[in-house]
């Protein structure tokens, strides 16, 4: 940070220029990429594990009333405005990237569980499950040794397909200033700060925007490839 070098356009010293308080935008972009990746790679495995656990419990216990209630609850949750709930909870819990991650996990897990449940329901109808049952294999064994391997790959692909969603919500929450707090940096905040300098200091937002575009397009292309491979 150099207060004497505020709003400097890109130079050899500062490749992406500097911002209003003289911070190097290139370094801010590097830090923001780190934030995006860290958020994605922390949230994805956790929602995977939680979704798997809840989905298994829903599918395992055949109490129709409980199952009906829980499934309707998950269906209702899926139709709620996730972003507004996340903002409401963030305002109460306080801004910060760790809170953003916790709330992302909270709001995304139900859809994950619903996916696992639906996949398990489909696989359970297959003949091989009946065969295994006729061998006298216990229910937990059928679930863990036979059903789980059958849904694993499609579940991996589905979890990965949520990457753009996580990136988008994270971008939105950071744009609102509820994620990373100064001196940390995020793309959402960089874009918001750049809005006031849209026409006078283009480097404040152009570089961040190009990196966001690359990040989103790569994530989506990866997801499409994985989905095409899995056929989900």
């Amino acid at each position: 940070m150099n207060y004497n070098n505020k709003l400097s356009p890109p130079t050899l010293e500062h490749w992406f220029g500097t911002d209003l308080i003289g911070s190097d935008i290139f370094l801010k972009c590097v830090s923001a990429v780190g934030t995006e990746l860290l958020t994605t790679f922390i949230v994805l495995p956790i929602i995977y594990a939680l979704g798997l656990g809840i989905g298994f419990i829903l599918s395992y216990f055949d109490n129709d009333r409980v199952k009906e209630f829980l499934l309707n609850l998950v269906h209702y949750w899926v139709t709620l405005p996730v972003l507004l709930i996340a903002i409401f909870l963030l305002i109460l819990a306080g801004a910060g990237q760790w809170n953003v991650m916790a709330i992302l996990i909270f709001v995304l897990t139900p859809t994950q569980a619903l996916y696992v449940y639906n996949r398990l329901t489909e696989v359970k109808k297959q003949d091989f499950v009946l065969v295994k049952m006729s061998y006298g294999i216990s229910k937990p064994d059928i679930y863990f040794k036979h059903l789980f391997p059958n849904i694993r790959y499609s579940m991996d692909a589905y979890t990965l397909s949520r990457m753009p969603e996580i990136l988008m919500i994270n971008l939105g929450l950071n744009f609102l200033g509820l994620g990373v707090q100064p001196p940390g940096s995020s793309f959402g905040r960089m874009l918001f700060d750049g809005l006031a300098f849209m026409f006078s200091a283009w480097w404040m937002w152009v570089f961040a925007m190009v990196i966001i575009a690359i990040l989103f397009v790569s994530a989506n292309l990866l997801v499409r490839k994985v989905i095409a491979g899995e056929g989900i």
Partner: protein
Amino acid sequence: MYKRIAYRAFFLLLTILVIPLAPIAIIFLGVNSPEYVIKGTLHIDLSQTDRISWLNIYTDFLSRIVQLDFGRSTSSGELVIKEILSGISESFKIILLAIVFSYFIATVIGILTERYKTADRLWKWTQFLFFLPMIVIAYLLLYFLDYLGVNMLSNVRYFAGAAVLSIYPVYVISNALKKTLQELPDSDFFLCHQAFGFSVKETWKRFCVKFIVLDYFSFFENIIIFMIGFLFFAETPFGIHGMGYKFMNAIQRFDYPLIIGYCIFGIILLSIIGLIIDAIKISLDHREANI
């Protein structure tokens, strides 16, 4: 068949009952002490906790939610609900335009890509544009319109905002339509009607179009949720003083009554919209009604 609606109505009620528990749970769990939020929204001073019970906070918050009384905006001094309603009228303009754009453009893309290979190839090559987050499109569009010398105080900003909001819905609807158009002629549903003696044209006209329209309708709820949720991405760059813009300003000014009011009002409004759409869908679609 109406069990699902009953469940949704029940969960909507449960949501209203649970929302006031959120601040209490957060204080109780020691995550944070959102006293500033409670003081701003409910005018309750938590420093005098010996005189205030949690039950009081809960019942006070709940009664305010039911009455849609979220207090007054700390920055403008206006009633929060009045601020939200004034924002809705502005936002409604771009949401309505965005819905029209989304369905119109997606239908054209869906039909063209299904019929013509060149259009399909072009669509595949340009699809990455739809992967871009709407804020990126908004910034580019704003810069481009300014370059062209367009007055951004004119009505053009509504069209620009609507275009930004409709990026993702266009992608989703057009792909779904294309898939339906490709799969329908080979489906059992189609073959069954032909076996009953209906011609291909008749089957399309009398049965398929209805289900395509119903499928269109099924996107509506998600589109509305998406558009209202990310409204601030479209309104902030173009200076449209709708709900998203006001919400963004409220966060910058720590105007807690307006932020809380907007969130709760949005959650309840969208839940009610979802409930109505589900009810309409079930009453129109016999496939849903008979499950």
